[in-house]
Structure formats: structure tokens, C-alpha cells
């Protein structure tokens, strides 16, 4: 393709086509704007609904701005809303999710880094087969492991507990974390390891002083990916928890579908935003890494 680089693109600028260009440009922005509205609308509705009183929700319109802003729904969602028979709000479940996500993310990231390092840099017979088997584990529908896992957690004495949920998230997270680190570490030339070996450095030393310092970007990507996965999980949460150990997504669903009393839409919306805040925050602060994680699993190279 390099032989074409000598030619320069022509730029036909006549007044007629200029006008057409401006019209096209406006059309373009219009379409993009319409889709901005489509994506923003649910968030807008959630926020405005959460700031209205129930009275105003019943009499007003879905899209209207709140006439009297009130944070009562937020207070209720945080510490008073009922999930079934208990009425403690989201607060305890929010902390359950934190207690579950932090160790699960740390452990699975650490294991992924070690596995990726071995598979990418310490080629031994069967390493690629092991990698393929682990990778396939990322893609199974988790329904296929729900029943035996429920029994296994029971046997291990972890049934319905937060350590049980941590265990499950680590086990089914290492496929992806290994993939991330492996794909990152294969780009580092193997001569580096060879040279370090000649200098007398061992397996752990090479990881600690050569690979780890290079790993910050992929650690960020992996931590964000795992955190989003674990925080947003519902299937494992609802299958392997019991009253008191449920993660925030399960509690949110219980609040929304709680049949006792009046339906408090403003509380539902406030609770939904609270449950979404941590991952939204991560996305806004580190969006670049978030996207890289999303695409890493699906785009080759």
C-alpha cells in the first residue's frame, strides 16, 4: 500500500457542494443527538423520579423535572426500604457487595497475573492446551455449574456465605484474568527472560522485578473488568446467598419486587442508582481502561 502514499487527496470545494456538506453535517449531529437522548433518557428518568415525592409521581408526567426536590426516597432506599420482611434498606447489602468484590477481585487478578506469566513466558508442553481449556471456561453458561456448585459449597461449609460467593467469583473469574495477562505478557520478548536467567534470576525474581513493574496498565484493565463483573453479578448472588448475605443486586431486585405496602417508585429508582454508582464511578473515572477490558476479550491482538 505504500506506493499509493505519494498521491494527495483532492479537495473539490465549490459553493454548491459546500452547502450540501453543511446540511449533511447538521443531519449528522441531529442523528447523533437523537441517540444521545435515547441513551440518556433512562438515567434522566431514574434521577428525576428518585427526587420526586410519590404524590408528584402519581400526578405528574414521567419526563417532567421534579417540582419539589426531595431526598426522602434516597434516605429510604439507603436505610429503610424493605427487601421482603426486613426493612434495612440497601446499606447492609451494599457492604456485602464490597466485602465480596474486594477480595474476589484481588485474588482473581493475582492468580490471573501468575497464570498469564507462566503461560506466556515459560512455555512447557501442554501450556497451550491448558490455556485453551481455561479460556473455554470463560464461555460456559453458568447454569451448567449452578447445581453442583450449590452442593459443593454446602460440602465446604460455605453455603450462603460471603466467602462462598468470593470463592465462586474467583473460580469463574480466573479464565478471563488469565486471558488478559497472557495476551499482555506474550508481547514482551522472551529474550528478556532468557537474559535474566543467564544473570541468575529465578522465576519469582523475574516476575517481581521485570514483569510486575510493566504490568500497571493490564492490572488496571483486569481490576476494572473483574470489579464490574462481580459487582453486577446477579445469578451467583441469587443462587448462593441467603437472607443477610445477599449482594446489592439481589437486594435491589427484592426491593423492587417487594409486594408489601405501596409501590414506591422513587425509592426503587434511588436504590437502582445507589446499586449502579460504584461501577458508574469506575466507568467515568477510568473509561479508557474499561473499554479496553471490554474489547480485549473480543478483538484479536
Amino acid at each position, binding site marked *: 500500500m505504500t506506493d*499509493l502514499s505519494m498521491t494527495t487527496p483532492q479537495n473539490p470545494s465549490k459553493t454548491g457542494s459546500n452547502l450540501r456538506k453543511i446540511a449533511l453535517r447538521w443531519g449528522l449531529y441531529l442523528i447523533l443527538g437523537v441517540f444521545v437522548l435515547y441513551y440518556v433518557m433512562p438515567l434522566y428518568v431514574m434521577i428525576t423520579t428518585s427526587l420526586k415525592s410519590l404524590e408528584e409521581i402519581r400526578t405528574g408526567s414521567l419526563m417532567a423535572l421534579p417540582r419539589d426536590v426531595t431526598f426522602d426516597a434516597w434516605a429510604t432506599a439507603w436505610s429503610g426500604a424493605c427487601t421482603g420482611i426486613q426493612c434495612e434498606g440497601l446499606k447492609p447489602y451494599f457492604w456485602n457487595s464490597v466485602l465480596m468484590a474486594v477480595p474476589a477481585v484481588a485474588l482473581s487478578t493475582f492468580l490471573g497475573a501468575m497464570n498469564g506469566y507462566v503461560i506466556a513466558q515459560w512455555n512447557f508442553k501442554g501450556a497451550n492446551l491448558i490455556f485453551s481449556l481455561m479460556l473455554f471456561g470463560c464461555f460456559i453458561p453458568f447454569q451448567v455449574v449452578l*447445581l*453442583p456448585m450449590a452442593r459443593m459449597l454446602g460440602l465446604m461449609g460455605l453455603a450462603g456465605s460471603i466467602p462462598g460467593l468470593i470463592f465462586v467469583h474467583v473460580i469463574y473469574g480466573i479464565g478471563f484474568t488469565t486471558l488478559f495477562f497472557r495476551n499482555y505478557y506474550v508481547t514482551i520478548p522472551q529474550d528478556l527472560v532468557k537474559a535474566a536467567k543467564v544473570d541468575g534470576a529465578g*522465576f519469582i525474581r523475574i516476575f517481581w522485578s521485570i514483569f510486575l513493574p510493566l504490568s500497571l496498565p493490564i492490572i488496571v484493565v483486569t481490576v476494572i473488568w473483574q470489579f464490574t463483573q462481580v459487582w453486577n453479578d446477579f445469578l451467583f448472588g441469587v443462587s448462593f446467598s441467603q437472607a443477610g448475605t445477599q449482594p446489592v443486586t439481589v437486594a435491589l431486585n427484592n426491593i423492587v419486587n417487594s409486594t408489601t405496602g405501596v409501590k414506591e417508585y422513587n425509592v426503587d429508582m434511588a436504590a437502582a442508582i445507589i446499586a449502579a454508582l460504584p461501577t458508574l464511578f469506575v466507568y467515568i473515572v477510568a473509561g479508557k481502561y474499561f473499554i479496553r477490558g471490554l*474489547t480485549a476479550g*473480543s478483538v484479536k491482538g
Partner: protein
Amino acid sequence: MSDWLENHLPKAVLAPSFIAVLIFVYGFIAWTGWVSFTRSRLLPKYEIEGIIQYERLFASPRWDTAMNNLLLFGALFIVISMVLGLLLAILLDQQIRTEGVIRTIYLYPMALSMIVTGTAWKWILNPGLGIEAMVRGWGFESFTFDWLVNPDYAIYTVVLAGVWQSSGFVMALFLAGLRSVDEEIIKAAQVDGIPTWRIYSAIIIPSMAPIFLSAFIVLAHLAIKSFDLVIALTGGGPGYATDLPATYMYAMAFSRGDIGQAASSAMVMMGVVFAIVVPYLYSELRPRND
């Protein structure tokens, strides 16, 4: 001695994860597969009885609905997300000044839990106070938009919310693809006076074939695993109208106490994923074995 240790350390580091995957992925699949051939009900039994569970499964109207829903939901979800994602990526690739902001807005739903997405759309779509009530409030008294509670249309609300959640991600995939197309080819085509739409349809889009495949795999995978979105949005209802295989499996496992049905439906889901993912993984991994 320390040499021996040093030589085997890499394997020793990998071993726990590998063993865990062998047990908790492959061993568990085997367990579920085994139980799917037994008469297990409330408790698992281990005597093989043949394909009785699969016969029950395929004779069940509820499973039939779930599979039909998966087909309909999956097809619409994948096609609409891909078309919308490609369109938005192409539009965003026209040197838009506010691209960063717009991209952020298109993609943020991907950061949300499906439970949050379902909760939000459930409120927006509820006929009593949502969009229907709003449009009626504008003076269109006979306007009806009751898809959420209409058994014939409820599945389309799942599509609507699913597309909202995932299309931004597809856009990001395609945008990365558009940016990696060789600019020299495009310049050359422009010099030759080829109209822009032809450049896209004949050069750029065909060159992104691998990305179409990736997007398809990811979306198909999301569709088959869809569980939380249905639970939060419709709860599988009205009736069983929006049941998917994932919700069927969960209902059998945890509320109906029918382990045999749960296992066999999980194995069918596994088979569908297998049929889609294995050829893809095979083609992805092969050229890398250098």
C-alpha cells in the same frame, strides 16, 4: 534440588488454577450431564435412566416458549445491536468534535448491572405511570403502549432494554475497527472519485469481517446467558411469556425442585453455546500456536 524446584515452579504456580478449572468447570459439566440422564427430582439421583429428562423437556410447553423466546430475542437483539452499533460507529467516525463525550454517553449502560437496567425500563415502560401515561397526558387519550404487560409483546421490551444496554459496546468494537482500516486505501479510493458510501460498503465494512464475528459471538453469548434482565424487567411474565432457557433452568433448580429438568435444560444451553463458541475459539487459538 533447588534446580529441580526452579524448573517445576512454573507448573506448580499454574497447577492450582488448572485443577480448579478441571473440577469446577469440566467436572461440574460432567456432573450436570450425568444428572440430566437420571430421574432426579428434589435430590439428585445417580442411576442412569436414559433420555427421560430431555423427553420431558422437549414436551414441556414452557420450555418451548423459552426456546422460541431465545430465538426471537436473540435474533432481534443481535441484529439490532450490530446494525445500530455499526451505524453509530460510522457516524462517530466523521471527525465529530464532541466525539469523546458522545462515546461516553453511548457506552455507559454497559457499566450498569442488568438488574439496574431492568428496573429502570420496567418503570419507564409501565403503562400506568410510564411512557403510555405521559403520551396520554399530552392529549393522545387513546395511545396504548402496554408491551410490558402484554404477553404477545413483552419479549420485545426485553429486546429494547437489551439493545439499550449493549449497542454502545458494539459501537466501541466497530469504532476501533474503523480506526484500524488502512487509511492509504481509503485515500486512494477517494482520489479515484469513488463515492463515500461505496468506500464503506465495498472496502471498509468487508475489511472488518473479524469484528463482525467477534461482536456476533459476544452478543450471542450475552443472549443465551440472559437471566438478570428478564428477572428484573418482567420476571419471566406475564405468565411464562418472557421465559428464557436461563430463567427456566433457574426456576426448575431453585423454586420447582426439579433437578433433572434443571440439569437437562442447562445441558441444552451448554450445547447451544458450544456450537457457537467452539469453532470461534478454535480459529482464534490456532494461528497463535507458533
